[in-house]
């Protein structure tokens, strides 16, 4: 187990999170609400990139209006997620699903930054690809998140070698 995860687990903050009756449910709700906020709004932008909605409207205009709201949602998502992580660091650190989820979040962020920093004409050639990748990645994150609660690939159980390796089981 990673020393940082072990250290974090025994801090008063982490202990308080685990012992509180209401903090975890509240945090989980905040996390779910911000999922709707972020993924839901981004999906609208992605649909526009895929030419599925608001087809008469300018892509960049829609993008510039949605991005600030989506970003705000993303920040709340990351903050609530960080606190949820702090409540049980070792379990999540060694979780196959959580690691995969985190990887997809990184890929999703890269895709979003790529879209954000591209300019003008060449944007529209790959706009559909960006939109599709975005939807698939963020929905994938939601899907993987739900799997975290299940212990199928907990260290010590029988599992394929590559999953054990990826999960950091020693």
């Amino acid at each position: 187990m990673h020393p940082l995860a072990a250290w974090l687990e025994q801090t008063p903050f982490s202990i308080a999170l685990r012992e509180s009756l209401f903090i975890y449910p509240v945090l989980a709700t905040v996390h779910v609400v911000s999922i709707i906020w972020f993924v839901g709004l981004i999906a609208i932008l992605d649909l526009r990139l895929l030419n599925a909605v608001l087809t008469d409207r300018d892509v960049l205009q829609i993008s510039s209006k949605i991005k600030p709201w989506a970003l705000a949602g993303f920040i709340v998502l990351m903050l609530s997620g960080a606190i949820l992580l702090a409540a049980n660091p070792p379990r999540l650190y060694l979780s196959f699903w959580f690691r995969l989820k985190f990887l997809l979040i990184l890929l999703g962020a890269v895709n979003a930054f790529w879209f954000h920093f591209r300019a003008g004409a060449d944007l529209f050639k790959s706009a559909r690809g960006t939109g599709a990748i975005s939807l698939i990645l963020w929905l994938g994150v939601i899907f993987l998140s739900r799997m975290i609660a299940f212990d199928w690939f907990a260290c010590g159980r029988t599992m394929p070698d590559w999953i054990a390796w990826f999960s950091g089981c020693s």
Partner: protein
Amino acid sequence: MLLDWLAASALSVAINESTWIFPVVEALHLCGVALFGGAVLVVDLRLMNLGLKQIDTQELATSLRPWTIGTGVLLFASGVVLFVAEPWRMYMSTAFRFKFLILIIWIFYAFTLRRKTIDQETALNKVLAGLCSMFMLLLITFAGRWIGFS
């Protein structure tokens, strides 16, 4: 009783005997929550004159309607499967009953007052409609999560 029949149904038995069906359907349900919620949220924000301000509220709502209904159907279908998996537990759950009640109210509200307000000009009515819708969805989300904790 209907619930006993559902609990004994082939679908219910299959879900309970399988390791993966329930988690996958639940994950799909959550994806539906995000997508449906986002579509509704965009219009609610627009009603409050936030977000996609340059687009007419009516145009926005109309353009998003197929997507909203489609994701709503996904939510409902996955929800039915989740219910059939444990009918008695859901039926007896305060959280589920609360969620379902607010959901029915919201659907009714969305098809009547909210839709009418989208076409209206009054700023105050629009802001109230947006807030009302968002608040109800917040309650539904909270109750949905609460089911998992109870």
